[in-house]
């Protein structure tokens, strides 16, 4: 596919996804080379969001396969609609159709339940296929994915082979719950997304919440950044920063001080132990996130 860097940058801007050149280049390559893109990084850094942005950018459908332990082909690829087939058989019992005729009928596309992978392959238009948290799936499933990712075709014994007319754009995400095989890594482009720095997070806040004033956005970004440097059980994600900032807006909090923090901390910190840690250090954290006097843009 022919895409330009400007197209990508414009698409990201439209989707209000604030990012850096690294991500831009990776997306450009994923679209031009038509190779799957493997994205790793901490939870909540915006990996899944990239697939959504891609699909918005291309104006194509997003097909999502959420992986989990024990995910198998039947739920990832296709399955026959057994109940419907059974009903059909029973309905025909009196009709006296020949078996050949009948079996041809009940093994037709009408009785096939398309799961995400088949859906992506059989789609008439190019889709974006998001395979989320591939590290949660079993090794065997990963091996099966390799096959699908290299050929983009599936054979269904009763129906024949389904081949992708247009190769889907594939995005895989992983939190490193398990090491992925080198074979999978070799076949993919690789992108690592970390939490944004203060500056980038401020820009994210500003682009998603234009009502938030600049000083507040700066203070919030600084505070969250400082939080991520503590040893928390769960680090606050970008989405949580946004929720928190939204709450600050709703509560009309103009200054980030200890009482304001106590009232809203639940949106950022979701473990009791983390909460006590943060509250014990809130003075230092707030000092690092100075309540900057209104310096308007």
């Amino acid at each position, binding site marked *: 596919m022919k895409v330009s*860097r400007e197209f990508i940058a414009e698409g990201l801007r439209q989707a209000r996804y604030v990012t850096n*050149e*690294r991500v831009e*280049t*990776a997306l*450009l*390559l994923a679209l*031009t*080379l038509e*190779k799957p893109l*493997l994205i*790793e990084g901490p939870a909540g850094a915006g990996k899944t969001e990239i697939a959504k942005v891609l699909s918005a950018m291309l104006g194509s459908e997003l097909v999502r396969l959420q992986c989990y332990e024990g995910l198998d082909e*039947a739920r990832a690829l296709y*399955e*026959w609609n*057994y109940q419907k*087939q*059974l009903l059909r*058989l029973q309905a025909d019992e009196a009709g006296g159709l020949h078996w050949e005729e009948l*079996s041809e009928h009940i093994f037709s596309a009408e009785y096939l339940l398309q799961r995400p992978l088949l859906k992506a392959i059989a789609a008439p238009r190019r889709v974006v296929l998001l395979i989320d948290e591939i590290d949660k799936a*079993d*090794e*065997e499933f990963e091996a099966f994915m390799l096959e699908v990712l290299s050929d983009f075709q599936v054979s269904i014994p009763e129906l024949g082979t389904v081949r992708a007319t247009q190769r889907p754009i594939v995005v895989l995400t992983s939190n490193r719950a*398990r*090491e992925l*095989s*080198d074979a999978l*890594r*070799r*076949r*993919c*482009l*690789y*992108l*690592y997304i970390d939490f944004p720095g203060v500056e980038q997070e401020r820009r994210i806040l500003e682009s998603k919440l234009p009502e938030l004033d600049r000083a507040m956005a700066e203070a919030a970004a600084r505070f969250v950044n400082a939080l991520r440097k503590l040893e928390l059980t769960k680090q606050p994600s970008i989405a949580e920063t946004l929720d928190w900032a939204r709450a600050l807006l709703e509560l009309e909090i103009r200054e980030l001080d200890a009482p304001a923090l106590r009232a809203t901390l639940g949106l950022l910190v979701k473990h009791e132990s983390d909460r006590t840690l943060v509250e014990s250090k809130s003075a230092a954290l707030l000092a690092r996130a100075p309540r900057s006097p209104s310096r308007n843009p």
Partner: protein
Amino acid sequence: MREPLLEFIGHLRAAGLRVSVAESLDAAAAVAAAGLEREHLREALAATLVKDQADRPVFEREFERFFRASGGAPRPPRSGRSWQGMSGGHGVGSGNQPPSSRPIVDPRRQPGPGSVREHDQAPGQEKNRSGPARDDAHGENSAQAARERSMGEREGMQPGARIAGTREVLLKPFSSYTDLEYERAVDLLAVLRRRLRVRLGRRRRKARRGQVDFRRTIRAAMQSGGAMLDLRMRARRPRRVDLLILADISGSVRYASTLMLALVAGVEESFRRVRAFVFIDRLAEAGFERGHLTMQSALDLYARSDFGRVLAELITRWHRLLTPATVVVILGDGRNNRRPARSDLLAEIRRLTRAVIWLNPEARERWATGDSAIGNYARVADALIECRNLRDLEVALGRVGDGMRPQHGLAPKAISGRG
């Protein structure tokens, strides 16, 4: 562009990254797509050649070094080699040298740590030779560049030597380690841990017995027109393994023990619970803090190994750790200084737990000699594995992670590492 690219990939490989042929093709296509602007080039190469964030620093170092002089687009092939310090006139002068000729001595051809003097000399000479030329070519940045470069060269020797040494260290018997080799083995642990994690993730096997899998049974039944002729089974969820490690740290096997504990500490999350003990003639609970072995209670390091007493102590004091989900791994040479072997106690431990696996760092030929009681223990343990070097250790721990009783029945002699 092709030649400098291939050369750059060569440097990455020398620095320890694994780059496949397909990946180099991807890199070429990526560069064509992303363009030669420096940052775009960097990210295009990174996305196609570096598939693990852990390798990124190495990539950055090599990238900076290789594409430094050129300021953006890589130079045409000939001067593309200038990263080696052969910039300016020197590079042109060497135009008819074969590509493989390098101004510095190839570290791989050097016999080893004995030749430190040569290592030190090489960068110095290099600096003298190319210094003036570079000053002309690069103006004010040149002094710093020269410093970095000469530093880089000294570092640069290490990756090559390290790769060449890797295999050697993996196969070197623990018993003949020098302190230097031990350090190198410790450096290698990170790689081994990663490989082991992959291996341990692969534990889920399809069992022939288990629970009935309704979905698959019914789906299979559709092929026979709705009659359930064949039951499909779902593999039972893999039981996670509790690991109990006993490691002898007496002089003869201490390298093997500390390396094993360090390796296990890195893959701890692959097991449900890990408890580790070190012993000589008594037990002490062990842990790892920042890569250093810590013991809960002091051990007499000058004592002589007494396996029998240690086994007795395990049963009396740590009885609650001996559960049916536990795999007991003992690392030791079984040299018991002619004290009672008490293999009956090992049999008792075996009865209480899922498996007992004995790793012996001694060469197989020496097992039955002198004061070795390993024969007595071998009759009781599920497996006795010869574990003479890092590679054996890696293989053995992978099998422990499988948490399965050995497939060859209970005859321990039939099972070994690589004999």
